[in-house]
């Protein structure tokens, strides 16, 4: 099997070479058969890589430890889920996974554009094929995932590090890869445009969507990495400017810059060269970050190993890439003249330019600071590092500038803003910002950067609210519908713009999280049973230690009771786990009590069983959850921006009668998942209502630390055990509360997921009702609007709106997208 895998890689290399050569030949000779053969070969690579991937997964699942890669990244006791995902667990497999994804992405990109951008397709095929050839070559000569042992075969693998046996760590790398690989597509389009000389804006339109998708994956991947660091590493934070973290951030900056500057080119025909430079730089950085983390060029305990040979190959590839890309760019410079000149610094173009400056400078700065030890070693012979304080010193002002630009940019008009529309546009957002800032100062904020951050957040939210409000009002006038339909229609007409604003909201939420970090508190206590630790409003009492064991690990758990305002709030269980056969690498299991205002974050860093003592770290992390909400919002905003054109067609209607149907349809769409769920739920019921309820409240004892309902472990023994117990209690005629009491009685209080009535739970329970009520209010209001005569809405209150503003907004709405 391993030999077959290796031959498949060789075959993929040959087919890539063929696809590249035949496509270029076909394009030059204008021969359709040759071109089609090239595209066919390109699809074939995807097929070959899929087969090779299934081979390596097969080896993992069946435990074929004669394959070295399988032996090194898995063992037989690993749950099936982790066995499959060990595919991208090491460098060799990562490279193969990369090529696999690239072949799928590339195939899809070519398939969707084969008619619309026929002249570009052969060169897209060629560029992507050459990139694939590099990675395939790397595997064939240096990092062959199918490499076998020459001598005797081991019968067992060395396993996966316990720290990495975590759900977020499983999905974090592939999400990042999807981002990196996705950014190859815009590069391939850009290069194809440069090579063919078809440098109008059509290639940009084609890659906009691809860039957005890749950017989404990259953002979410970074977020997942942060969540992993926060929940698994147990130092109370999520980002420490480590080279490996920074590496992923570099292409994110330039990709974000590109997503903004592309609008200037579409709208005003400027920044053409700059956009291509950004596309090339972004792709270069995706390669460079791999090089940086894998080759040992940066000294860090977190870099993944030293490998001079790999470094040499990457350097050769990167040099070729830069020379060829920028060579073509210089060759095509005459075709890349701007259509327009820059008019004024008080314009949307200028705001975008500033935004680009700052993002690119951020990328440059992070790169510089990350590479500083290497640079200083090369220049002075001394290896000198710069720590997180240096990064924060720079990135906090940079981040704040970026935030305030997020608020200012959308308020400026294209070409040139007049004093009149400046006043008109800035009044409300500035007031909003001042109000928030004033409140924060009045509350006595100690950290200046956080205070400014809150003020700026107010400004940005003011801007976005104003944009939505005014846009919806204008649309309401022109279409004569109700405000709600107008709002939906507005977003539908201009998904990219308003999706973008939603992403700006997400950025504000994230900055709230960052600002909160200014107020975090931390205490380290050597605790004896009964000892109390005071932090913020909370009192944390250490009750004692408990040792348990399941089949895979021994768990030492610290039992803590949390009080707030004198009343018992909840119990928390930070732990240390010792996986069998890896006892020397214990994992720290953090206990987190989340709420909107702050996280109480407990770590047991050490313990002494004989004396029942433990070293407890207590962190109070204000507002940290808003960061995760921000990532969710970002995904939603990008999703809106990516929606196909037809998605909102129903709300685009001009006539009120149709608009009524539009709102109705939209409500139906919103409610539809619920209906589907309701239908779906009926045949699937395996448990009675009482069982289901208890399953949600009782923790599975297999060690997953989730409820019985959500235990995702393969072959979970804990669930079966607890279900048997649960059925027994129910058969004894116990009520819900009695069942829970019986569980606590038999298994101890830690069997419960959480005390059933803590503050956050109450909120979570309340949410559906609040949403339901909000939906009801919306329906009533919509109904009232429809029943009102249409003319009344068009004439009365709206006459106060500035007609010039109206015209301008309408103009922009028509032109954009």
């Amino acid at each position, binding site marked *: 099997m391993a030999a077959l895998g290796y031959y498949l890689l060789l075959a993929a290399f040959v087919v890539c070479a063929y696809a590249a050569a035949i496509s270029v030949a076909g394009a030059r000779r204008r021969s359709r058969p040759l071109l089609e053969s090239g595209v066919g070969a390109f699809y074939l690579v995807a097929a070959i890589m899929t087969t090779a991937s299934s081979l390596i997964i097969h080896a993992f699942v069946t435990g074929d430890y004669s394959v*070295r890669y399988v032996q090194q990244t898995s063992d037989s006791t690993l749950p099936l889920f982790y066995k499959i995902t060990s595919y991208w667990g090491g460098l060799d497999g990562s490279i193969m996974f990369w090529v696999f994804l690239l072949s799928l992405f590339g195939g899809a990109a070519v398939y969707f554009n084969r008619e619309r951008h026929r002249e570009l397709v052969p060169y897209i095929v060629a560029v992507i094929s050459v990139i694939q050839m590099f990675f395939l070559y790397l595997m064939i000569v240096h990092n062959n995932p199918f490499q076998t042992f020459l001598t005797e075969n081991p019968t067992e693998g060395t396993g996966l590090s316990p720290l990495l046996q975590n759900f977020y760590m499983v999905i974090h790398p592939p999400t990042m890869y999807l981002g990196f690989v996705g950014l190859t597509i815009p590069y391939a389009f850009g290069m194809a445009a440069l090579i063919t000389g078809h440098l109008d804006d059509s290639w940009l339109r084609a890659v906009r969507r691809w860039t957005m998708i890749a950017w989404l994956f990259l953002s979410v991947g970074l977020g997942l990495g942060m969540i992993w660091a926060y929940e698994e590493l147990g130092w109370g934070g999520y980002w420490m400017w480590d080279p490996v973290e920074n590496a992923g951030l570099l292409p994110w900056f330039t990709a974000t810059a590109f997503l903004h500057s592309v609008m200037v080119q579409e709208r005003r025909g400027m920044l053409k060269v700059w956009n291509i430079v950004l596309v090339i730089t972004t792709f270069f950085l995706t390669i460079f970050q791999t090089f940086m983390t894998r080759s040992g060029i940066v000294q860090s305990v977190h870099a993944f190993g030293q490998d001079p040979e790999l470094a040499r190959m990457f350097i050769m590839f990167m040099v070729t890439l830069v020379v060829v890309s920028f060579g073509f760019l210089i060759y095509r410079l005459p075709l890349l003249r701007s259509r327009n000149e820059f008019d004024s610094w008080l314009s949307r173009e200028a705001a975008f330019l500033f935004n680009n400056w700052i993002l690119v400078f951020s990328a440059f700065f992070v790169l510089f600071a990350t590479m500083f030890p290497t640079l200083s070693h090369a220049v002075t012979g001394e290896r000198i590092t710069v720590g997180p304080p240096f990064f924060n010193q720079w990135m906090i002002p940079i981040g704040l500038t970026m935030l305030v630009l997020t608020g200012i940019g959308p308020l400026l008009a294209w070409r040139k803003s007049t004093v009149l529309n400046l006043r008109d546009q800035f009044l409300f957002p500035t007031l909003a910002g001042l109000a928030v800032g004033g409140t924060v100062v009045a509350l006595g904020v100690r950290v200046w950067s956080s205070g400014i951050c809150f003020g700026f957040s107010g400004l940005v939210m003011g801007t976005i609210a104003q944009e939505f409000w005014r846009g919806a009002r204008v649309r309401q006038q022109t279409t004569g519908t109700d405000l709600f339909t107008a709002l939906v229609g507005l977003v539908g007409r201009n998904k990219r713009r308003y999706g973008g604003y939603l992403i700006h909201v997400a950025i504000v939420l994230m900055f709230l999280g960052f600002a909160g970090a200014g107020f975090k508190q931390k205490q380290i206590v050597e605790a004896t049973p009964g000892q109390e630790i005071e932090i913020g409003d909370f009192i944390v009492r250490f009750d004692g230690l408990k040792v348990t064991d399941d089949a895979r690990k021994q768990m030492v758990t610290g039992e803590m009771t949390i009080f707030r305002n004198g009343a018992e709030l909840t119990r928390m269980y930070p732990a240390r786990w010792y996986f069998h056969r890896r006892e020397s690498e214990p994992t720290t299991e953090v206990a987190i009590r989340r709420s909107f205002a702050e996280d109480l974050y407990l770590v047991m860093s050490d313990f002494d069983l004989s004396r029942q003592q433990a070293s407890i770290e207590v962190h109070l992390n204000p507002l940290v959850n808003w960061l995760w909400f921000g990532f969710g919002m970002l995904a939603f905003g990008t999703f809106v921006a990516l929606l196909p054109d037809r998605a909102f067609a129903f709300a685009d209607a001009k006539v009120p009668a149709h608009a009524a149907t539009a709102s109705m349809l939209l409500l139906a769409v919103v409610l539809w998942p619920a209906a589907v769920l309701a239908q779906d739920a009926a045949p699937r019921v395996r448990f009675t209502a009482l069982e289901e309820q208890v399953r949600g409240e009782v923790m599975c004892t297999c060690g997953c630390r989730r409820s019985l309902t959500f235990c995702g472990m393969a072959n979970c023994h804990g669930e079966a055990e607890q279900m048997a117990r649960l059925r027994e209690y129910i058969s004894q005629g116990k009520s819900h509360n009695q069942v829970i009491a019986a569980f606590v009685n038999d298994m101890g209080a830690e069997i419960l997921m959480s005390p059933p009535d803590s503050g956050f739970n109450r909120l979570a329970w309340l949410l559906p009702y609040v949403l339901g009520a909000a939906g009801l209010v919306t329906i009533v209001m919509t109904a009232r609007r429809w029943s009102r005569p249409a003319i009344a809405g068009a004439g009365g209150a709206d006459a106060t709106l500035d007609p010039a503003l109206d015209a301008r907004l309408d103009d922009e709405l028509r032109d954009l997208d």
Partner: protein
Amino acid sequence: MSYKAAKIGVTGLVLATVFGILLYTTLGESMQYYKYVDEVADSPEAWTGKKLQVHGYVVPGSIGRKRDRQEYRFDIQRNGKTVRAYFTGAPPDNFKDEAEVVLTGQFTSEGFVATDMTAKCPSKYDEAKVPVTR
């Protein structure tokens, strides 16, 4: 064209200079030397008072801990040279015999007093390349 180019050039130059100066001045405060144990083991006096990061491996059996305190004393070595180190606080999960660690701190007459410690990420990613056997 030349006027525009000159304008852009001058703007770029001014910005680059300003940022360069800013970078240089802020660097001074946060720079730390990054040394391997064997580079500093012979002459720790020369480094006294300087903030330093030291990279090495924990000598097996050398880790000692004060009773009831999170105060650790251990030796780190590289290429046969050893330095005595002190650390107060919660050590990382993978701090153990032979662990690869980077300590941040200063040399005193006692040894290297670390305020911060990171240990090699127990990465599933390849640590060392084995000879190709294919």
